[in-house]
């Protein structure tokens, strides 16, 4: 593995500018640094050590030997029934010069990969498994909403997401699902999705 390393607080190292999905490195890094906690970002990884040794040189020394296993064990395909009735559907269509039906087709025909569960409990950042879609040029809302209902499906910055619960948010909303993404009472598996899972949105009628 080749990466740019930066000190991040007294216990952590930030890894950036490496090849591949961040989550695909987790298993190898955990194997090489058994005392470290490995956390994933969209384009980065953070290793947090319990001690005060020289983490940067420790990581630097072992990094070349670390290979991307790229094996995501137990990754699954999850279909999310979606009612395409989002508030921003027409705005997105207009911005892209597409019809609403074309926007829905593009979103529902794309196979998505869970790149990160972050921001809030169970919140998935989904990227097109093929890299880009016709929706990729849509950015975030200029003024974020103070309340986005649970189950809302949004797009922004080349990604898609599903809001697991009601929260503030700045993604363009395309639709809505009744699927539960986060269940705090299930401590064994509180989230429906995990890093590396594939997601497909399946259109359902109102």
């Amino acid at each position, binding site marked *: 593995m080749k990466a740019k390393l*930066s*000190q*991040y*607080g*007294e*216990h*952590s190292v*930030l890894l950036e500018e490496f090849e591949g999905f961040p989550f695909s490195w987790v298993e190898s890094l955990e194997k090489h640094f058994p005392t470290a*906690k490995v*956390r*994933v*970002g*969209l*384009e*980065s990884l*953070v290793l*947090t050590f319990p001690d*005060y040794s020289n983490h940067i040189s420790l990581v630097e020394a072992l990094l070349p030997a670390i290979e991307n296993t790229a094996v995501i064990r137990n990754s699954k395909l999850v279909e999310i029934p979606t009612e395409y009735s989002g508030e921003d559907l027409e705005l997105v269509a207009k911005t892209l010069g597409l019809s609403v039906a074309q926007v829905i087709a593009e979103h529902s025909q794309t196979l998505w990969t869970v790149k*990160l*569960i*972050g*921001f*809030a*409990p*169970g*919140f998935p*950042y989904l990227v097109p498994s093929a890299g880009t879609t016709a929706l990729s040029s849509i950015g975030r809302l200029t003024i974020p909403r103070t309340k986005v209902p649970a189950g809302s499906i949004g797009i922004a910055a080349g990604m898609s997401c599903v809001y697991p*619960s009601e929260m503030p948010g700045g993604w363009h909303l395309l639709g809505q699902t009744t699927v539960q993404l*986060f269940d*705090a*009472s299930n*401590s064994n598996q*509180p*989230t429906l999705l*995990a*890093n590396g899972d594939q997601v497909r949105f399946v259109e359902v009628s109102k």
Partner: protein
Amino acid sequence: MTLTIVTAGITVIEDNGRYEYAHLGVPVSGAFDRLSYALACNLINESNAPVFEILRGPFQLFSDVAILLSAVGDAQVSIDGAISSVNSVFVLESNKSLSVTPRIDAPVYLAIKGLLAPAVLGSASHDTLSNLGPEPLKNGQTFDTKELDRNDSAIGSFIATLPKSLNTELRYVAGPHSLDVAGGWKVEILARSGVRLASPNPIQNASSSLASFPVMLGAIQVPPSGLPVILGPDCGVTGGYPVAGVVIDADLHKLARLATGTSISLIPVTKEQAAQASSALSKAISSAITRPSDLGSW
């Protein structure tokens, strides 16, 4: 064996927090003032105990059974109107009420030996941002608790020397992003999710937003406004603003002791200095408490 919250004030239940679910987007949460929390737990000889984090009083509880408690922080504590002492273990006899009123804008920790609080994802901590864990306390709410053991070795324990803490000096290790936040700031908003700072001289070159990356308690985020936010225990697991540094472990408890309008200094230190401060604080915590057994026989 029921404990009743007579007056809740602004009180939440906290413990060490949820460390095992960050990869699923779940914040750590947990006690804001980790030093006072550790002392309150150590006093009653329990680790990771669910405690009451009292942010604003008056707080009052009634117990129909005798219980063992400790209170740590700057507060007035009284039992049925008679003043009792903070920073020590005490017994609340059955059918008595206990009042706790914080004297300053800093949380007070009330630890009750044998308090049963419902855990969510392995922790009884209330997370204000994600709304996980037990709800903030309400008047009339009841808890199951255990009757104290009269032979408990914790009885009579007290804090002889509080670890020294200059609460307005926050040391941090700089990085990962190059932004200079050293110097004086004023606290604008204080919440369990973070402390927002103000200054007539915001950071100038702070406009860029990044691909979301893991953040943590104590991280000094610099949003486009150039006015830093120091993340608190209920912060989200990832963030998209540059991070100028992370407050050192030994100073994290100070975040909870700040108040709106307080002037603070952010002081960069090396990782080695952070390690020294952390070990000094651990030593201070472990030697803070005097137990009756330490005093020997007269």
